[in-house]
């Protein structure tokens, strides 16, 4: 089995779409060579509803072989991993207690994976663009409470996680993508910010409410420090960042 990178997160946070968009041929420094974007889109898109299908919970994990070229400071490097998608449904307590065997298998998969990408949705405390209905999002308090449970998950269920990446997704709804991408963008020949500085930048702007929770994760997980990102399928630079980060460690 290849090294695995697993996407986790609640329903409708955009895990599958985010991963799929990585295969978009309009890329910058991350190029997926093993998957065909159009083909993948066909598989995941529901033409009757005009939306992407929810990833079904009849299976706890969906594995796809991912062969990626990442342009690192030392040049193009190959990263071969299994992209492991999980349906949001499995992160509900009821599903876990109804399907104990599948849940345990999933936990094993997560524990064995090289990297964990937690995709989280926006909350009402963010500065939304005009015309966006807040009703579809959790309040900041609910969001923090949910985050506490992710902290428990990392501490109890994967204390040996090697790389935890947290992506606050759908950033197009609450920030100026161009401007943030300009600040955060990666350039193989010298970026404006390094990984620690990017993390600090994102942390101070978008993860303030869960700062102490992030500290707890860092304290109790033996791998490297958690890295926070903002992501959107509408901005390639932001979309690629978590993978360039992971690629630095997983490159062959």
């Amino acid at each position, binding site marked *: 089995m290849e090294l695995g990178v697993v996407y986790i997160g609640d329903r409708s946070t955009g895990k599958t779409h985010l991963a799929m968009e990585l295969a978009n041929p309009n890329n910058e420094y991350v190029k997926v060579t093993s998957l065909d974007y159009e083909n993948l889109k066909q598989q995941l898109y529901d033409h009757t509803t005009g939306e992407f299908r929810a990833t079904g919970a009849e299976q706890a994990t969906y594995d796809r072989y991912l062969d990626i070229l990442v342009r690192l400071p*030392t040049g193009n490097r190959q990263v071969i991993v299994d992209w492991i998608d999980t349906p949001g449904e499995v992160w509900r307590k009821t599903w876990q207690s109804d399907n104990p065997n599948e849940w345990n298998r999933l936990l094993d998969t997560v524990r064995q994976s090289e990297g964990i990408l937690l995709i989280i949705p926006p909350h009402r405390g963010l500065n939304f663009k005009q015309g966006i209905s807040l009703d579809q999002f959790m309040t900041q308090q609910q969001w923090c409470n949910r985050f506490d449970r992710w902290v428990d998950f990392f501490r109890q269920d994967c204390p040996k996680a090697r790389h935890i990446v947290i992506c606050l997704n759908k950033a197009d709804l609450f920030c100026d993508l161009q401007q943030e991408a300009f600040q955060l963008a990666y350039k193989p020949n010298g970026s404006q910010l*390094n990984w620690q500085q990017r993390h600090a930048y994102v942390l101070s702007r978008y993860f303030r409410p869960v700062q102490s929770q992030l500290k707890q*994760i860092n304290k109790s997980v033996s*791998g*490297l420090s958690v890295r926070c990102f903002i992501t959107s399928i509408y901005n390639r630079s932001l979309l690629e960042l978590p993978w360039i980060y992971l690629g630095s460690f997983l490159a062959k």
Partner: protein
Amino acid sequence: MGNIRVIGPRSSGKTTYLAALAYQPEQTKRGGRAKNYTIQALNDETRELAAKAENIIVEGDSLEPTGLQYRTIDELPFYSFNIDVNFILGKREGINLAIRDYPGEIFDELELGLANSLYQEFIDECLMKDVVGCLILLTEWKKGTDKSYSRVLERFTELMDSHDRANDLRLAVAMSKCERGELWPGRLDPEVDLFDVHLPKTKATLRAKIPAKNLRFYAISTFGVLRRNDPRPNRVDEMGTDGRNSVLREARRWKPYGMIAPLYWLSTGKRMKDDA
């Protein structure tokens, strides 16, 4: 070829030290004072480590612990370097080094007494006859650490004895991460200003067990400080990791301190003028 082992507790900076050695941050910069040594990576693993330094450390992150992903000693990375040291009057000396990087768990296990057969294997390999010396990196000095280091090293000296290496294995004992403000001023005379002050028991244990000619104390700073007249550490400690993960603050000012002298001594038994 001098076979050297690097041991030390978890997060004492062993792999980062070797990565800096492989990458040579100062060699990659233009200008600056010429150093009195040059280093060449001799095998793929060492070149790979240099790439990691460039892709990860220079980019503001930390290397992964050399942890338990290794199941046998043969899987452990083996780094090979050629170091050319230039002396005054144009004299040069080249040394070849083969260095094995051990996971910190081994050091920690020593205190508890090597229950695991894998650790036993590590130690057997570490004390083989063709190993000329060990670089021991120590990093803490908070309450209780001196006692624990001293117990671990006492145990190590017993193992040296049982492997018939008590009198012919050099130990370079170094305080790592000396860019830290409390340590930096003590780097010039580490035995007195770092070990006597922070780890007296550890030092006494080693002095009692190891022949004086085979024991030296060093100060190493892989990240260094920002500038000669601005000795702030060139590192940032990460939130909530209790100092376990620190990253380089300014890559373009990356100037390690004290990297070569211990290796040169381990390999040749001769002292080298400070290599900062």
